[in-house]
């Protein structure tokens, strides 16, 4: 196996640098996926039928909480990768753990929000607006859930194996994914919640 030591650990083998490029391309497809969901939402957002509209169900408090958690988790995720490049395992584990806990917190608030909407008779079946809202938020939330399972598995692997070509590469790719979810959330915050509250 050819190893290029001038590069960061996660890029050193040819296979691993291919994986990073492959994941970037996959994120390109993910951008199209979310762009389509946003288009659907923006097409349907004022088609509320007999159901409530955004202003009637959105509350800024929990949404700001979600935003704070997810944006901060992206920062700690960056710190984790930085620690990895410095070869510091303990800070890596700590920052990575904090990242996942904040993700979990985000998910908790999002689920509570969903339950609140449903209690206000705003279900996924009520109107086109609510269908597209739940599916857009739900797709993002499903991605976060996936990230929690994936990241949890990675923490076990790093704990067992330390920083190897494998674990470094996986952790770095995870960080790309996590930052991407953050970017998507910023769009959700702006085009769903702020727009809906205005």
């Amino acid at each position, binding site marked *: 196996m050819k190893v290029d030591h001038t590069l960061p650990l996660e890029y050193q083998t040819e296979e691993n640098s291919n994986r990073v490029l492959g994941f970037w*391309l996959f994120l*390109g497809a993910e951008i199209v996926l979310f762009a*389509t969901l946003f288009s659907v939402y923006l097409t349907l957002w004022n088609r509320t039928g007999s*159901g409530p509209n955004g202003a009637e169900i959105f509350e800024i408090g929990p949404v700001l909480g979600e935003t704070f958690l997810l944006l901060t988790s992206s920062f700690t995720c960056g710190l984790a990768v930085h620690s990895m490049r410095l070869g510091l395992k303990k800070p890596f584990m700590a920052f990575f753990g904090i990242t996942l806990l904040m993700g979990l917190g985000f998910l908790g608030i999002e689920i509570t929000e969903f339950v609140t909407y449903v209690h206000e008779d705003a279900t996924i*079946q009520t109107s*086109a607006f609510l269908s597209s809202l739940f599916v857009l938020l739900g797709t993002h939330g499903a991605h976060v859930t996936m990230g929690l399972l994936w990241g949890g598995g990675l923490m076990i692997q790093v704990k067992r194996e330390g920083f190897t070509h494998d674990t470094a590469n996986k952790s770095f790719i995870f960080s790309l994914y996590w930052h991407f979810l953050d970017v998507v959330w910023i769009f959700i915050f702006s085009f769903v919640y702020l727009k809906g509250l205005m």
Partner: protein
Amino acid sequence: MKWDEFFVTGEPMIYGAMVSIVVVSLAILIGLTYFKKWGWLWREWLTTVDHKRIGIMYIIAALIMLFRGGVDALLMRAQLAIPENGLLDAQHYNEIFTTHGVIMILFMAMPFVVGLMNVVIPLQIGARDVAFPRLNAVSFWLFFAGAMLFNISFVIGGSPDAGWTAYFPLASIEFSPTVGNNYYSIAIQIAGIGTLMTAVNFLVTILKMRAPGMKLMKMPMFTWSVLITNVIILFAFPVLTVALALMMFDRLFGTQFFTMANGGMDMLWANLFWVWGHPEVYIVILPAFGIYSEVISTFSRKNLYGYKSMVWSMIIISLLSFVVWAHHFYTMGHGVMVNGIFSITTMAIAVPTGVKIFNWLFTLQKGRIEFTTPMLYSLAFIPIFTIGGVTGVMLAMASADYQYHNTMFLVAHFHYVLIPGTVFAVIAGFYYWFPKLFGFRLNDRQGKLAFWIIAISFNVTFLPLFFLGLKGMTRRMYTYSESTGFGPLNLIASIGAVGLAIGFIVLVYNIYWSFRYAERDTTGDPWNARTLEWSTHSPVPEYNFAVVPKVDSLDAFWESKKSGKPLFTDKIEEIHMPNNSGQPFILGMIFMFFGFFMVFSWWVPAIIAGLGIVVMLAVRSFERDHGRHIPVSEIIKTEKALSSRMDTDAGLRGEHA
């Protein structure tokens, strides 16, 4: 649910199909057991990560699907052969034209193209495999799972019946209450995920794994076409993913995306479908252009004319493909401005396509043309495809389209584009690259016979449909009265369809005969071709190239044959190869069951299967498999064994280097 709701009952043809499925499955099971081939099947095929074998499996699956879609076509033509025919009822006819369309596009054309991509691309760029061999196997098994799931619909639960476009509100649970369209939304979804992974895989392969010296502008034209195609897949398929997911939500969970009440918007489906659907047309046509470029330049013994303009025209086509989708529904109520813009973008596609047509013609000019079977398909493609293209420009004019929309004229147009475009191309590619895979050529005389039957019958089948359309016969009509006067032309078209069937039977016989009797090729380069795949042995050893070739020009193998400058100058070193794995196959099967349970809304089994998928992902994440190394001694042994069958200049392949 009662058993007679589960299985489709009351149709003699379906009973016949059930019996034949059971008989064929039993024959395969008994055959595998009797000849003790289970281990061989598992080790050599089901667990393989070798791009060549995966390519062969894609092509076999595509040929089976060609048969299935072809039977659908024959049934439709039989029904329409005479006025007021009672062979099929309206429901059965609806199901058949729906499955014909879906299967031919998604489960025949796509996998055939992807199969050829798999076989050829790593060889053509001088690589030893794709970037992610394991992911490649996952792609195949997801495609396979989707195809199988889609195909069992006609005996279990009923086929989708709302057209291959599945327009809402027709495809909604309200107007299509059977599980048929659940199959549509879930089976295509599963196969689509596989296709998306293929795109990522081949983009990385082509961008990062080319032989040293092969700059982008020195890549063979087929590689270029595949690169551009995969960019289109990467950006078009997520739209389909969303569209199908929303369809599934509407049908299974009562959401209101495309409904008629509570704010739903049925036209949203049409837009989403075609935002994917039109690029999809170019996903199956651009690789075909690539195949024709290779074949025409090889058998004209000339460099491809206008290499750069070929590349740029494909790039322009790929961009335009994303801005023409609304031309599929000019008549569905968007105003003059929108129709005008989409008319112009659509007609603009004729320009880069025309550039390509002229480039092929100029490549032929003053060439020493050799009329082999693949070359005949390529030569027939040019005029027939041009008819398809010109009628396409007619359809592109929005105001005129009010006359053609949803008539047989349209049906004739897209068959004139897709059959000489894609089907002729994959057959040409199949004949052309077959010797690389199996070490012998398909018999040329039989191949030419099949070609002439297919090419003539194609025109007999589809030319009358233009006139039927202009006379006012709409598509998807299951019968017509004698007074319409549609009878004679329909009968001619049906006779043509029988001719096509005969042509394909000759083609299959051609394959069978050649496996038994064809002369073995000992050169590795039976066509005196140009690109790197022909510089290694046939059949190709698992590591493709004992030594990685060094390239300094376009068509480096051709140049090397002319100048005598060797391609392979390095020493043989040990080669790193990926290990086989059963996981992709198992994952595909779990996906198939997951899809099946979802189709019938059996939530508990569906959740269990869904958890199974998550477990498989976790298993893969914790696995450490760094492949194996083939030692130099074994490579030399393999090369010697292969060379002893071959009498070529061994130095060319680097055996003595």
